[in-house]
């Protein structure tokens, strides 16, 4: 058997559902004095799955907490059979896991569980995203007065916004605290949760709809600071500039924003 064919047969063995190998592949192998070929191949087969499942247990610990060991093992095994790793780094192994949950489970269970998985993946993304150049309060203090009305910002690269239709943040928190799980509940209206890294620590915060809308307006739609004030004037009248400054200061303090080039 040529090297390439032998390696492809080995790969098929690792990816197969059962630890027993094809007999024509097993026939190309030798064991040792007290280690037979079947046991040797089973060591590789088991190590492949358990190593990858361990990574997912770490990256999706709240999903694990929700499902328990057995259900999580079954779900992750199905995931790894469906989407074997495509990246050299195990750091990306769980990238498709939230979408897989939606594909694989019935809708009533999959929607809140997939959202929880998305929340956990947001932490993974925030953890090692590029730092960027988040605005600081010092930067803001040194802005000349004429720069304020035209100030435009975008989200810093570590910021991961997530629209939560369920109480996923409360469930995630309970899993971290190892406390009793709250029942899964739909939120009305849906709530924006931000996950980001600031000074090498990951943070999260749920935003009230008005603040979420203001942040989206500035950081995504591209409103200038003057446009933010104008938008807020509808609901806050003369208090609009104060509210705009309060939020902007909070966002900058949290390290959420970068300056957008004019």
């Amino acid at each position, binding site marked *: 058997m040529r090297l390439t064919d032998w390696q492809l047969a080995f*790969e098929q063995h690792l990816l197969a559902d059962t630890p027993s190998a094809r007999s024509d592949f097993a026939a190309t*192998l030798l064991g040792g004095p007290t280690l037979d070929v079947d046991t040797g191949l089973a060591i590789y087969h088991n190590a492949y799955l358990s190593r990858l499942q361990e990574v997912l247990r770490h990256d999706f610990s709240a999903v694990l907490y929700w499902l328990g060991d057995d259900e999580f093992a079954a779900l992750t095994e199905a995931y790894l059979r469906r989407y074997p*790793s*495509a990246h050299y780094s*195990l750091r990306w192994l769980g990238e498709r896991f939230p979408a897989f949950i939606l594909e694989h489970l019935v809708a009533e269970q999959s929607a809140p569980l997939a959202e929880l998985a998305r929340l956990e993946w947001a932490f993974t993304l925030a953890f*090692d995203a590029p730092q960027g150049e988040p605005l600081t309060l010092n930067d803001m203090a040194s802005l000349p007065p004429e720069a304020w009305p035209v100030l435009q910002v975008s989200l810093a690269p570590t910021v991961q916004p997530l629209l939560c239709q369920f109480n996923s943040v409360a469930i995630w928190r309970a899993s971290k605290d190892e406390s009793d799980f709250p029942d899964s509940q739909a939120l009305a209206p849906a709530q924006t949760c931000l996950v980001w890294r600031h000074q090498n620590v990951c943070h999260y915060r749920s935003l009230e709809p008005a603040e979420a809308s203001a942040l989206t307006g500035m950081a995504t739609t591209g409103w200038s600071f003057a446009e933010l004030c104008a938008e807020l004037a509808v609901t806050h009248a003369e208090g609009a500039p104060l509210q705009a400054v309060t939020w902007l200061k909070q966002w900058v303090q949290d390290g959420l924003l970068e300056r957008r080039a004019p």
Partner: protein
Amino acid sequence: MPTSFSSLGYGLGLRNEYYEQILAQSPAVDWFEVISENYLVQGGKALYYLDAIAERYPLVMHGVSLSIGGPHALDTDYLKQIKQLAERIQPAWVSDHLCWSRGSAHQLHDLLPLPYTEESLYHVAARVRQVQDVLQRPLVLENVSSYVRSKADEFTEWEFLNALAHLSGCQLLLDVNNVYVSSRNHGFDAWTFIRNLPSESIRQLHLAGHMDYGDYVVDTHDHPVCDPVWALYQQTLEYLGPVSTLLERDDHFPPFEELLTELSKARELGATVLARRPLCA
């Protein structure tokens, strides 16, 4: 016969569990080995600590994803990132494993054994040269533990390593534990393996623990080094002279002090062995 490289001394694998302790206490570790893939990221805590530790200690890069014997083309993007990381932290050397870890389309994330045939030898040697051309430095390759071997083998593992070092100019990372594990599983003599390696090409040693199931041994790197591996290490040092030695732990991380104690054992054993070893001209 001695190795041709000067020794960095006694090092530990850099793991995130120990970052803060290392920076706070500046422990008596001569150097650290970093898993390259953990730092092929664009930002965050890992790179922050890596840069801080690189300012205080010599570092060595140890990869797990090169797949030097794989059936696919080498991943040039991965190699480019390895090179960039090497430029960033200036490691004393860059290593990976003599194995394959990527199949037709999937990453298998394991250090899979190669058949020791002429076909494998020329396949790997050509790829080593390709990697060395990109990295502009010799590649250091580690022997892996294995649980099956190919009936098609035309060489022993040590013959294969000899031929590969000769053909490609690669250097060797001799994992003493892996030799022990494979010797138990395949029924060869561990010392025969080591004394038949091209000693002048051995750049580094690894020490680690494993799980002994009686009939076979599994390389887990999650236990302290066992007595037979210490004995083999001692014999290796008597033969090679001083070689950079790295204590590896990949799981079941003990308190850092326990690793330091285990590293001290390697250091003391090395001092004893090397004190009574005749100086070579």
